[in-house]
């Protein structure tokens, strides 16, 4: 991996389920609706895949905000939505311990045609990041 450095851009990672948020993001694209370019969408079958340490690692690497766009109660995998919610709930206290604002991590249900909710979530996360700044700032303060 190349050297990391504090980025000017506040980066938002969107982990989007193929049956929900990822298809929803494609729907937003089909509308040609505009949103910020600091958003990086990675597809995932079900976010219950990610342990809480993954989120902590990702913040530490310099991702400033993570939105998990899952399928909520429409998750086609039994227990997937509930397990994801459990993991996120367990991650919040660990973020606090490390001095991170928990608003950086958000779990939202986005369906295949949820275009407006998608745009709203991206805007909201950007507003939060504008308010609280880069994650590295919080992590460096907590390490001092």
């Amino acid at each position: 991996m190349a050297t990391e450095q504090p980025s000017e851009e506040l980066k938002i990672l969107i982990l989007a389920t193929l049956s929900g948020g990822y298809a929803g993001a494609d729907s937003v694209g089909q509308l040609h609706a505009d949103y910020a370019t600091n958003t990086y969408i990675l597809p995932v079958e079900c976010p219950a895949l990610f342990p809480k340490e993954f989120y902590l690692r990702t913040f530490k690497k310099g991702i400033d905000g993570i939105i998990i766009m899952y399928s909520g109660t429409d998750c086609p995998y039994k227990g997937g939505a509930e397990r994801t919610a459990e993991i996120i709930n367990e991650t919040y206290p660990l973020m606090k311990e490390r001095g991170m604002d928990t608003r950086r991590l958000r779990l939202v249900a986005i369906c295949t045609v949820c275009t407006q909710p998608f745009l709203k979530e991206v805007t909201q996360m950007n507003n939060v990041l504008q308010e609280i700044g880069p994650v590295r700032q919080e992590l460096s303060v907590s390490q001092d």
Partner: protein
Amino acid sequence: MPDKETSKLEPSQMKTDTEEPRIGVYTCYCGGNIGFVIDCERVADELGKLPNVVVTRTDMSMCSDVGQTMIEEDIREHGVNRVVIGACAPSLHEQTFRGTVSRAGLNPYFYHHVGIREQDSWVHSHDHEGATKKAIRLMSAGIAKARLLEPLEPIKLSAEKHALVIGGGVAGLRSAWDLSRRGLKVTLVEKSPFLGGHMAQLEKTFPSGEEAGGLLGPLIANVVSDPNITVHTYSEVTGVRGYVGDFHIQITQQSRGVDDTLGEAAMQACKTEVQDEFNYGLTNRKLVYKAYPGCYPSTPAVDWDHCPDGYLELEIDGRQIKLENQPKTFDINTGAVVVATGFQPYTPLKGEYGYLEHPEVLTLPQFIRLLTLIPEGKELQLNGHRVHNIGFVHCVGSRQIEGIHEAQEDGQVNNYCSRVCCTATLQAINELRQRYPDLNIVDIYEDIRTYGRGHEEYYAEASANQVLFMRFHGEEPAEVVRATDGDKSPLLIRVKDYLTWGEEIEVPVDMVVLAVGMMPTSIEDLIRLLKVSPGTDRFLLEVHPKLRPVETAVPGVVLAGTAQGPMNIKESIAAASAAASKVAVLLSRGKVELEPFVAHVDHELCTGSGECVEVCAYEDAISLKPVSMDGKEVEKALVTSANCVGCGVCVSACPNLAIDLQGWTLKQYDAMVDALVMDMSAIGVKHE
């Protein structure tokens, strides 16, 4: 300028799976859909500086023959052994390019697709610089993943060329027949003693006006006479093991209680009557009964639900005969399951629009049966009283609002539209108008949703035939109350009518018909056995409403008809045929291939702690089994690939990071994140 090559290729050398990654990166202009916003040449140039990238190319249309041939040549002749493509949404062309890679002799999973059209150029058309930088980041993440790709093989399983259809309504019957015509053996199980489902209770169907029986009868005849199809009525699924291609299904069948020789005499001899569900309680039937004239099977059946001791004693021709229920259980082996368990009409709660409080209030299904029970030319009567004024109320049990409508037993309201009831109501109204021209008919609706081809004509016909329409708002539903003694009509409908700007109107009526919505049949046991998921509306969920509309997340289990949501007959049949096609394609070769994106356990790291087994919701997908390691027998987690749906729940649960999802590993996600945050200028990329 497209079609440019920025290559640092060495001469061709054959690749193997263990070789150092030699990544080919392909950026598509997609006509101008991508190229008019994203500087594709710059993307190609910059990505060419990343480690392991040996060729970067652009093309006006990467999915064209020219584009695909270019990729194939790079693999064959230039030693590219990993492919990353930045183009339209993966859902559109992932399979196309997997085929391209495969044709060139490379493992098809040595390819990663990055969507830079829907998720980049189309949503950042006013920021070309930002969109270009984002494409570089997203594709560099794809490259990072590509470095860690492992060769994967589809999971290949032998498959029974046999399907099980659960449900003997129109969707199940149609699925069974279609499956047979595609050369598969079929077993159809129906829980009730007779085939036909709700369609058998209808008279005319919209929009063609054809007799329901005239359509259903031949379909049943085709199914029961088909040598490929075995029908088990009075039967239900009581056990499910196995996986796609090789399900072991346990079926439990109730006795009919009588045979052809005894059936008619037993019906005559039986004196006990219960409400006839075929007529929704408007009439009674005997405990030994046939559901409807011409039903299949024609042999009567005993209603064991009303024989709590499991037997029925009758006196036939002076002899005491004891009819006993002796359920039998048997197993079948099948490759796939079609769930066609159907719907049940919403039953209004007591007092909802006067239901069960006033005998003059019926549901639409009851009313449809009532019309069939009244001979042509006879006046419309209910409980001996002639009906002069009749009111219909739409959206009963549909589009409910929390706080306004009383919740169901599970605490939820039915907030969905049942879609079918508007046209069904108008069809009943038009038929009523034809039979009783002098009747006063009032239709009270929230919205009229006659959405299908030929449906709006029902509304137009009703409007032209003196049917009076009134419109309420969902927050202010109409009320049905008892009229004052001495009034001509026994009931009043109170409605705030928004067609007259909110005027509060009282309509005297002799009968009220509630256009009730659809609810799924109660199939909790089947949901548990098959591991399929219901949605918040309790109907069964497909994987994706557009891309995989009849498949569930469980491989080999598909949905047909109203088990999936409200549908009319035409839509149910279309869904049933789609389900049959999906199963036929899956099983027709006698083997199935599944995506290899399933859990994989590293036995060096696995300590047999069992957390993975605890969190997994799928039976036999992962289990602890004794394994011999270093001469000792130890318990390790083992994945049965065919039962694993690839949700990854077990991955996050493992305390030792011993489990990963093939094709989407945590290391690959970590690498993608690394690429997204990477300082690209450090490796010479002019990015930030």
